[in-house]
């Protein structure tokens, strides 16, 4: 079985973002970039399925400028077999990404496509579901457990009230939640080996996808600052302040 994993290059999750002075966007110049944490979990799950002998090939794909090759190499070092970069000048929106991935799915014909549930930059939580709609595949979003069976997969999903399990016929789409697994670190020898693994470059044009946006970004602002608070000495003072000053008790 072949598994396709989509990964995204995003700002490192520990970095505190700064909005540009002209409010056109956040400032990404000279900021540390990394593999989106949910994508890391997706790669890990695919590699574990390979280690269990369920999958025989793990293909990773990323969309964007040449810099995304860095994240593809990371995924290769974590255990993926082969990488595909779909070269675009900038980061397309979720619908365009889903259309590009549909093109890759048609070419590669994977039995399982694993994505992260959301990217921590745009916080959209859309791509996996959109790919499901475009390819007609069933989806198991926010997965905390993936059980492969013959011709199907049982996905336990994190929903608002607890957990829900759905059974999906293959080929299917899974989007990962945080608790699905704990991603491994890439070892130095694996990082070296990853440099020799195949990485193909294609373009959105070759896949016949138009990446124009219909949602325009007008302005980006920092969130409203909270006014500085006070430290209280003990519980009595805290309760007093909550009752008489903040009036929330």
């Amino acid at each position: 079985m072949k598994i396709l994993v989509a990964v995204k290059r995003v700002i490192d999750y520990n970095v505190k973002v700064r909005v540009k002075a002209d409010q056109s966007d956040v400032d990404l110049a000279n900021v540390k970039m990394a593999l989106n944490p949910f994508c890391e979990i997706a790669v890990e799950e695919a590699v574990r399925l390979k280690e269990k002998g369920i999958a025989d090939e793990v293909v990773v794909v990323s969309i964007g400028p040449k810099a995304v090759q860095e994240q593809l190499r990371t995924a290769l070092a974590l255990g993926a077999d082969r990488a595909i970069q779909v070269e675009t000048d900038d980061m397309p929106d979720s619908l365009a990404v889903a259309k590009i991935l549909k093109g890759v799915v048609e070419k590669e014909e994977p039995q399982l496509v694993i994505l992260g549930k959301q990217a921590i930059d745009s916080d959209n939580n859309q791509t996996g579901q959109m790919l499901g709609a475009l390819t007609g595949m069933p989806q198991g979003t926010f997965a905390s457990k993936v059980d492969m069976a013959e011709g199907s997969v049982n996905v336990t999903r994190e929903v608002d009230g607890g957990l829900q399990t759905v059974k999906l016929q293959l080929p299917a789409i899974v989007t990962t939640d945080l608790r699905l697994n704990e991603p491994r670190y890439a070892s130095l020898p694996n990082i070296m080996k990853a440099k020799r693994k195949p990485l193909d470059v294609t373009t959105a044009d070759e896949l016949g996808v138009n990446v124009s946006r219909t949602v325009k970004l007008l302005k980006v602002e920092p969130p409203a600052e909270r006014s500085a608070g006070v430290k209280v000495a003990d519980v009595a003072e805290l309760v007093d302040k909550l009752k008489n000053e903040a009036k929330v008790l």
Partner: protein
Amino acid sequence: MSILVIAEHDNKELNPATLKTLAAAKAIGGDIDVLVAGEGCQAVADEVAKAEGVNKVRLADNAAYGHFLAENLGTLVAELGKDYGHILAPATTTGKNFMPRVAALLDVAQVSDIIAVESADTFKRPIYAGNAIATVQSEDAIKVITVRATAFDAVAAEGGNASVEAVDTVIDNDKSEFVGEELAESERPDLTAASVVISGGRGMQNGENFHLLEKVADKLGAAVGASRAAVDAGFVPNDMQVGQTGKIVAPELYIAVGISGAIQHLAGMKDSKVIVAINKDEEAPIFQVADYGLVADLFDVLPELEQAL
């Protein structure tokens, strides 16, 4: 242009997030129809028909919609949604699951998790874990939107008198099926709707110690939440997690106990009206957003707090 709002419910009761989504629809302006899709959910349709500003309720009552599978619900909403200018649903796990399918089937983009309506085509939404607020304008003919419920005040649940009309379209699929669910039992108010929330983090040390929080919560009528560290350590179930990847809350009062205040946690609670931090590390980042901070050992403070209330 008219608006279609998708009701969130459990087949028995309407989720209050729907009333907040109706407030966002009202801000956009136009006739508002509500779709109630589920199984045996007539009572939900009757309930939403009474909500303020609802023009018409469309009821799709069929076993195919009983578990809100995205494959069925997404196709149904895309079908019905063709006649509307806007399609809105709350940004709950259900809404997040099926709405992007709707958008892709209609070949339009989706605007996720809006926190404000600037005009019928312009919205504000948080990005980068709430560290930046983007204003976006959609040029799509049909605008597919999920709404962050905590950012809007609910419309009145009573006073409306909309008609309920049955939808006969049945969309089923043979590629996905519901197997089972494990829902967490709780007597306390729902985390996202509670006016007071008290949350514990890694500092709680173990699951048993959460009863110290529960005692305080009972005195306050509060819901109990947790940070990711507490969930990952297995102290409490994951549906209690507050943060970028968990639930977004905005109560009147949020009490963070033994929580350092990582960016991802703040994304889930920093719009609370009053924030209290109890932590023994006075350098903890949580104190930068807290209105009231108490530097002390939580094991001393929680029993005292329970006594004082």
